[in-house]
């Protein structure tokens, strides 16, 4: 079974189509696939625990792994203690490790 990697670059408060990630990632997880959502660029803006209406907690509750680019977090002044507990900071190297797995299907959004 494939593992899915969604690379989310869009600000969820700017782009309503961030819901695409929620729905698709959750559905794939419910079908038994391993699913990782890796937040990059403005995609990390929904990762603050005080963010209202963030879709990320729901994704975590459904079993999706949530990682956030540490470079993007630093650029936007988001500290580790501000993050939703479900979101783990990760390096771009970690993204490449997932991407380089034969079983991974990667989708940029």
């Amino acid at each position, binding site marked *: 079974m494939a593992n899915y990697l969604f*690379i989310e670059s869009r600000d969820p408060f700017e782009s309503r189509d961030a819901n695409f990630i929620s729905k698709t990632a959750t559905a794939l997880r419910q079908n038994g696939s391993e699913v990782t959502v890796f937040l990059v*660029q*403005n995609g990390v803006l929904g990762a603050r625990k005080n963010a209202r209406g963030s879709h990320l907690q729901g994704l975590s509750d459904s079993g999706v792994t949530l990682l956030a680019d540490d470079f993007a977090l630093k650029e936007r002044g988001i500290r580790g203690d501000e993050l939703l507990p479900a979101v783990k900071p990760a390096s771009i190297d970690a993204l*490449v490790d997932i*991407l*380089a797995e034969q079983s991974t299907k990667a989708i*940029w959004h």
Partner: protein
Amino acid sequence: MAQQSLTLALMDPPYESANTTTALRIIDSALKKGIRVNVFAYEGAVCLPLKDQAPHANPVKGTTVEEEDHPTTKKFISELLKIGGDDPLLNWVNCGLCVDERGAINVVEGVKRGSPKEFLEMAQASTNTLVIPTK
């Protein structure tokens, strides 16, 4: 086991989108891990390795060209193309039709010209493929 390889399709022109920065970081990380990387630059992305790019001063800050040390995408790509020495780990292919449309012919050493056919072949031969579209 065959050597790992990634193929990326890029479409954003230089200095337009954070997508380019993230893509170059992914490429850099993969190359440093010894993973071969193919890039198919499509549409405006064919201008990323343009040799004619020039760094500029910053009149707002009052800095000179040297002080500003403005990063250009051609410089990043040139450095990435050096990884691996005589056997570069990065294979950068610019879409020929996109190049002709834009007159983007004068590119840094090592950049090749190709077509979507090459993209398909690179993707088929790669461990994985990532398409980074414009927004």
